[in-house]
């Protein structure tokens, strides 16, 4: 028998995260007949609206209202969950900056197994949950078998499960706040600092020349800038380029960087990790140039070229310059 499934739903400004419907879809792939329970934590009128809104997709919505839960501090929310969640269940949590904070510790405290960042769920077989994960930045996938004997906490990759339509239900909100008691934590939230705007706003450009670790050295960044200059484009990048301080943080595309919506995206020496792809929206025309023919970026690109960017990009720049000088004449 499939254990009961709980879905942790985050929210912001009175609106439930997209993960609410994605994780519902994920739960249905564990068992089509399951009626998962949403669990939400927060406080205030906006939070009440979130609970109400979830009634159209979840049969049961467990509401954890507490003054100390106004900000989603995972350390406090873990404690709150432990007060209400029964054991031996499956708990689904989004694999985002909050889930990474909450879930591993939650699994220990629930004495449940833990599987992180699943991209596919293949149902329950005997007392095992079969799932698919990726390793090495998406270069390989692996089937994993998770022992459900004492339940499981599973984090689910955002965007991996497509929400199903017309699953309308008229669920009920069950207020569990009374079970929370006092909630304190040795980690106290102070404030959120909004990322600084950089010299160039990559979110406003139609063409992005995006460079990854394949650019190899700070001195080579100019190669991409020259191409961007002839195209009237901007240079963006993946995370390692920012980590190495070759470009400012404001140039980073991805889940911990900017979300961009260009028309054309040239991914140069970028492998195509999901945290990077998460920042590319609006279905642009993606060109991937990478010296490894098996790089995962080729699975999402429209056009792929296997080449060394340090040689390819300057030649591309020259070609465009030539064309421009011809038309200028």
């Amino acid at each position: 028998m499939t254990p009961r499934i709980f879905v942790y739903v985050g929210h912001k400004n009175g609106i439930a995260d997209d993960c609410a419907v994605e994780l519902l879809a994920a739960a249905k792939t564990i068992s089509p007949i399951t009626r998962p329970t949403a669990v939400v934590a927060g406080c205030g009128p906006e939070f009440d609206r979130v609970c109400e809104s979830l009634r159209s997709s979840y049969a049961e919505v467990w509401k954890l209202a507490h003054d100390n839960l106004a900000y989603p501090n995972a350390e406090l929310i873990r404690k709150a969950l432990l007060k209400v969640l029964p054991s031996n269940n499956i708990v689904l949590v989004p694999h985002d900056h909050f889930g990474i904070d909450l879930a591993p510790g939650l699994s220990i405290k629930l004495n449940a197994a833990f599987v992180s960042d699943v991209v596919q769920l293949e149902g329950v077989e005997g007392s095992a949950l079969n799932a698919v994960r990726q390793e090495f930045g998406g270069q390989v996938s692996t089937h994993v078998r998770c022992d459900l004997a004492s339940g499981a906490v599973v984090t689910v990759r955002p965007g991996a499960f497509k929400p199903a339509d017309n699953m309308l239900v008229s669920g009920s909100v069950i207020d569990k706040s009374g079970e929370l008691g006092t909630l304190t934590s040795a980690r106290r939230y102070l404030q959120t600092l909004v990322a600084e705007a950089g010299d160039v706003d990559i979110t406003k450009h139609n063409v992005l020349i995006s460079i990854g670790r394949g650019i190899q050295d700070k001195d080579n960044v100019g190669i991409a800038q020259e191409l961007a200059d002839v195209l009237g484009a901007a240079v963006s990048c993946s995370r390692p380029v920012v980590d190495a301080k070759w470009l400012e943080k404001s140039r980073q595309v991805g889940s911990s960087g900017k979300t961009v919506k260009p028309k054309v995206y040239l991914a140069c020496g970028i492998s195509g990790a999901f945290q990077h792809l998460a920042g590319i929206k609006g279905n642009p025309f993606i060109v991937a140039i990478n010296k490894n023919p098996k790089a995962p970026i080729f699975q999402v690109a429209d056009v792929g070229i296997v080449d060394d960017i340090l040689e390819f990009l300057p030649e591309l720049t020259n070609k465009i310059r030539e064309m421009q000088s011809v038309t200028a004449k």
Partner: protein
Amino acid sequence: MEILVCARRVPDTSENEITLNSTTNDIEREELVYSVNESDNYAVEEALQIVDRTGGSVTVVTVGSEEDEEILRREMAMGASHGILLSDPAFTGSDGRGIASILKAFVAQGHYDLILTGVQADDGAAQVGGMLAAMLDYPFASLVNSIEVLDGKTLKVSREIEGGNKEISEIDLPCVLSIQTGINEPRYVGMRGIRAVASLTIPTYGASDLGVDASVVGKAGARVQRVDYYVPALGKTAEMLSGSREENIDRLVELVAAKGGLQ
């Protein structure tokens, strides 16, 4: 401050193409270049910088085998005072919970004010740090991208959240933090530094030294197991341009122009 950094040796993804072995029960490990996991190296650098400011010492620990000693030496060449190997045949095949249990047993024998891990190992699940914290009943913060020591009892930490925003919190010591890449600029380790620590003996502890609960470690104790590795066949793949470089450039220019990318 006494700081423990948990580190792991992984195949270096920036140096290797990862492929499957012939029985697809593992990746092909012949000829892989290994190095210290990227975020773990940032964690060691962060620990060294904290100790530079406040005093104390840095210990680096890994659960692994003799081969993994090389990363301990590397981190000692960076400036860590001690490198510790936790190794036992019984540990082979442990899942994340197993690794965290072994680390917990080690922590319980010493006294550390601060424990750092990397956010995630390249072949990992971003789990060991959070699990270790829960087992120790220490507060935890993940994805940490700056640390300020307020006093002997509290840190001010920043977590990286969506859009590059920063979540600032205070956290009481002792605690566990998982360190994100980019938090600092790890110092360079030269050959001379490596040679200076090459002959040091690395203390090694096994299951009985640590008093590890045998039921949670090793393959038998693992609740999560890999069944196989594979490379998924994906529906959509790129149109690969396979002409000469010149031909590819011409075609690319055409395509990009058609998409409005040329002005």
